[in-house]
């Protein structure tokens, strides 16, 4: 399988700081997979994704060692335009990425930069608007819409550019539960389409884990753990110790496992329905053994 992103021995220290924000990062992200990045605040999650999308080192000053490659091309040598056609970034604060005066202008801005003709722009615009359901907002100012709508618009802006790699930095951090669900629905659609590499930094592990192919834990600027969601929480006490709280259903299943109610080889569930099945099996086994 082709790797969309390859990071080798990456180290990064921001200007005017004493410690490296990223240390010894080695990571391969296969094409068309979904990577969830978790970790407590100030552990290097945003710095890591900024390195992948080229903001580091192009827009930040600091010490850069190692390499980040997007489909074999080093980010260090790519122009902003070249990176933007390969990697789309949705910022944590959607307002931080507004560059235009109406939602429609905002959506087409990136497409105009990438040199699409008008027909293609219209086609991409209609598609992105359809996926994110913001057709009724096109005429509005990006500042005059709700938080959830802002985030959907920010995602639409990236989708419109159709990059093979999409990165989202805490896309649900500033919106209400309904808005969060809507964002995760979009992520689910993108994942099901299976034609993009998706990297999402998110604290809402309950929703992230069922979507991700791999979960990555950042701690002290390093990759502390990387595993598929089914095995990511095997070492649950340490995960919790690093400030990351697993889905409730995973914690409960872990307790069942530790208490001997389910076999040690049991894979920990991260979805509610998987938890129900596990519980039913455990109850059935207990009844049969009685």
């Amino acid at each position, binding site marked *: 399988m082709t790797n969309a992103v390859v990071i080798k021995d990456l180290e990064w220290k921001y200007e005017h700081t004493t410690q490296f924000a990223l240390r010894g990062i080695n990571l391969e992200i296969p094409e068309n997979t979904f990577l969830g990045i978790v970790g407590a605040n100030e552990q290097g999650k945003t710095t890591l994704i900024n390195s992948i999308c080229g903001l580091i080192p192009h827009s930040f000053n600091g010490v850069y060692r190692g390499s980040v490659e997007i489909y074999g091309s080093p980010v260090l040598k790519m122009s*902003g335009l070249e990176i*933007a056609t390969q990697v789309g970034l949705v*910022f944590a604060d959607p307002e*931080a990425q507004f560059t235009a005066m109406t939602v429609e*202008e905002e959506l087409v801005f*990136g*497409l105009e930069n990438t*040199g699409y003709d008008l027909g293609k722009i219209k086609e991409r615009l209609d598609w992105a608007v359809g996926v994110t359901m913001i057709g009724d907002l096109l005429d*509005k100012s990006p500042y005059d819409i709700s938080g959830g709508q802002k985030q959907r618009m920010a995602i639409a802006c990236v989708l419109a550019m159709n990059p093979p790699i999409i990165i989202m930095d805490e896309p649900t951090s500033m919106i209400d539960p309904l808005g969060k669900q809507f964002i995760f629905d979009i992520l689910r659609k993108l994942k099901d389409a299976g034609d993009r590499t998706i990297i999402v930094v998110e604290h809402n592990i309950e929703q992230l884990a069922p979507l991700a192919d791999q979960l990555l834990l950042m701690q002290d600027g390093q990759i502390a753990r990387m595993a598929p969601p089914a095995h990511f929480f095997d070492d649950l006490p340490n995960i919790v110790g690093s400030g990351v709280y697993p889905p409730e259903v995973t914690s409960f299943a872990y307790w069942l496992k530790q208490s001997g109610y389910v076999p040690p080889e049991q894979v920990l569930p991260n979805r509610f329905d998987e938890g129900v099945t596990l519980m039913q099996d455990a109850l059935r086994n207990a009844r049969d053994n009685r």
Partner: protein
Amino acid sequence: MATSAEAPGGVRAAKLRKTLLGYVPIESPFYRYHPVTRLIMFVFFGVVPIFIDMPEINFALVVCTILLLVWGQADLKRLRIYMPMIVTIAIFMFLVVILAPGNDPTFTPIHIGPLTIYYQPVYFTFASYWRLMAMLFGTILYFSTNRERDMLVALRSLKLPFLASYVVGFSIRAAGMFMEDFNTIREAEQARGLDKSALKLGDQVKLYVMYLVPLFSIALRRADEISHALFARGYNFTGRVGHGNKRSDYILTQYTMTGMDWLVIAVLMTLFVGAAVAEYGFGAFRLPHSPINILLHHLLGLGWPS
């Protein structure tokens, strides 16, 4: 922004569009015209008063802009927010000219009780005030009925380079964001118990100086964020775009010039050139031709103004 407003009596009013200084209905007649036509109208109302000294004509331009606001279905009640500015400008201008009229011996003194004022500088100030009002109302007309987007479309249609129009748009937005941040800081202070009305004038001045620190740090942070956003969206200031293509301008394709646009532009341009020629070629709009000036000269026994 298009929005619905609840009219008195619970009736849903027409959908409104947010403009730079207020709201107008989406169906406003202004939107039948191309943004370029509207920009040229702004230039006309903003620049023509420069040619005109006669306060009567400038007053007529003010009335004209108010009639256009009515025609455009703009909310005239919003004009009230400009009243303090309009009154303050008048007080400031007339106070200066009354207290410091200059010492030209040809000035005609008028004694009002213990006060002596001089006719010529006062009338010149009166004329200048209406010129300023005509320009102000022209600006209010444009910014009350147009959005940033309309302005950018107009500038780009007139072949202003993308970067230049982008900077104009950003400047407008930055001013709005600055005011928003300023209000946020003030609200935060009030929420923590600051009663500004209880402060002495000196302390209030100090308070305003103190606002500069958070406002500048917020502005710097925003500049950083916008720079990152532009990078992430592939923008570069060389104007170079991907695929080796010329930059497409999608938004411009949403607007078309009609025959009515060309007609309005032709009329405005003709009036503009006519006004310039009449003033600079024949001095047609100078103060000696002002009917009010002539009347006052006769009432004061000064003969014909020169």
